[in-house]
């Protein structure tokens, strides 16, 4: 409220600077020891081979599909249009303005290069990162929705809802995610795809079975977190809301859930950081997420340590960003 930001001087213990120094020394020793260890193993480090898995310059050739002559080259601002006239047909090709390798009147055979240029393409790891990010975001959103519904069902007085939720939570929480992914893809997936086929619809890609397995896995944990959050809100809050004539749903929506969600943000963040890392198992069902992409990169480059270290760093970027986002959200919710 207003400008009541009384800046309190942070209490510094005695010898503050000394302990900051100790901290730096600890970090340096750990980093140094780690570096020493990497030098001791018999492995040739070739970091210079790694950047191509982030982005690389691809050579692109535009080739003719017919025999004939170059009838015209129409230069434009960004692109030129090359028109080839054959005996019975003609074709036009667009190419970046500077890249044209032919001149008007040139004789062209099928497969001849008309233009060539280089283009930046995202590397394997970046493609994998993008897929991991997509899966994590969608599964997180679905996981929250499942968790809120599950949490409400878990505290419901209706035994059908409550017991179903308990069984869902216990089974999903108590069994390995790897098995669940396999079941989603090979068991449920087969059935769902057959049903879709019966209605003349296409197959659902593996991506969505991956998302579903992660969402339901995280949803089980979130269910328990949400239940705890709701139950931690004082009973008087419900009573006050209900005494004003609000229905159960209204008091949940306006009074209980907003307070509960604020309280459960920290454990939720932990859960979704786990989810990001758990998505590394999805390579099993041929989803090319970050870890699968990394394994492919290792197969090609034969540089496992560099690639996997970088992969870990990329996961760290995702999880750290999530941590920061949640921390900001928490702050925004408490300082009103």
């Amino acid at each position, binding site marked *: 409220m207003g400008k009541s930001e009384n800046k309190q001087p942070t209490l510094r213990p005695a010898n503050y600077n000394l302990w900051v120094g100790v901290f730096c020394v600890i970090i340096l020793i750990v980093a140094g020891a780690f570096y020493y260890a990497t030098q001791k193993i018999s492995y040739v480090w070739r970091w210079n081979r790694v950047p191509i898995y982030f982005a690389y310059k691809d050579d692109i050739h535009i080739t003719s599909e017919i025999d004939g002559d170059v009838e015209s080259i129409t230069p434009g601002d960004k692109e030129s249009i090359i028109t080839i006239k054959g005996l019975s047909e003609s074709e036009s090709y667009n190419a970046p303005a500077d890249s044209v390798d032919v001149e008007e009147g040139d004789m062209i055979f099928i497969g001849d290069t008309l233009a060539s240029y280089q283009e930046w393409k995202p590397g394997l790891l970046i493609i994998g990162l993008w897929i991991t990010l997509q899966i994590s975001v969608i599964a997180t959103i679905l996981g929250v929705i499942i968790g809120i519904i599950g949490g409400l069902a878990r505290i419901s007085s209706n035994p059908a809802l409550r017991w179903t939720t308990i069984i869902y939570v216990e089974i999903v929480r108590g069994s390995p995610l790897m098995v669940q992914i396999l079941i989603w893809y090979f068991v449920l997936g087969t059935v769902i795809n057959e049903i879709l086929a019966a209605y003349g619809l296409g197959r659902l890609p593996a991506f969505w079975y991956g998302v579903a397995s992660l969402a339901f896995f995280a949803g089980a944990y979130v269910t328990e977190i949400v239940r705890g959050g709701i139950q931690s809100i004082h009973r*008087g*809050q419900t*009573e*006050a809301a*209900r005494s*004003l*004539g*609000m229905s159960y749903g209204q008091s949940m929506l306006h009074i209980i859930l907003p*307070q509960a969600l604020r309280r459960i943000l920290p454990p939720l963040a932990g859960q979704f950081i786990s989810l990001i890392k758990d998505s590394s198992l999805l390579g099993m069902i041929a989803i090319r997420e970050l870890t699968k992409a990394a394994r492919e990169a290792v197969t090609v480059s034969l540089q496992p340590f560099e690639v996997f270290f970088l992969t870990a760093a990329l996961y760290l970027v995702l999880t750290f960003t999530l941590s920061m986002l949640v921390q900001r959200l928490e702050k925004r919710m408490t300082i*009103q």
Partner: protein
Amino acid sequence: MIDVQNIYKTFWVPDEVRALVDVSTKIEAGEVVIVCGPSGSGKSTYLRCLNRLEKADSGHIFIDGIDVLDPKTNINKVRAEVGMVFQSFNLFPHKTVFDNVALAQKVVRKRSKAEAREKTDFLLKKVGIHDKSNAHPDNLSGGQQQRVAIARALAMDPKVMLFDEPTSALDPEMIGEVLDVMKNLAKEGMTMVCVSHEMGFAREVADRVIFMDEGAIVEVGSPEHFFKNPTHERTKLFLSQIL
């Protein structure tokens, strides 16, 4: 206005506690009734049964002719007509003072934003906290919080107000400001049922005082009768302890 007929309530916590035993009362519109009694006497349970925050085991409760205990009754409609103020305020900590008062008007009474704003401003002025409109409850004193809670209940234009020990959680110097608001309400003709040990307040505004002990109504009477010539031994004992 309120007609309570032979209600019983037993808690199992885990042993049997008979909180209400055959309690019957009739409260007319405009009446101010104070319910007092030693702790554990069932007075809060009685009050909470009136708007079904606790469900009486048997008996009948009619509010404005509507059977509160009938499962077919839309209890939310009844509760909107019955304001309640709690000992521990129970304001919504994630909402501003203004929103605390305005929320149920919009959600339950379906008032427009403008209508709700007008009513909220009016009520916050009435209880004297208009300047704290945008503050959060945590930044208010206990007395201020309880006055907001009263405004929140009044915002529904209730026909009856229930007060559950509204001053028991307050520091002594803040009791007066809350009682003043309640006195004004009583003067305006609001029907009030108030569980309270504020005997001065009872003397000043109550039409009747109900004394409860061990889940039953022991004695009912006007304040004069009650304070000057109590007939029951238990009433006398209780009064000697608190006065």
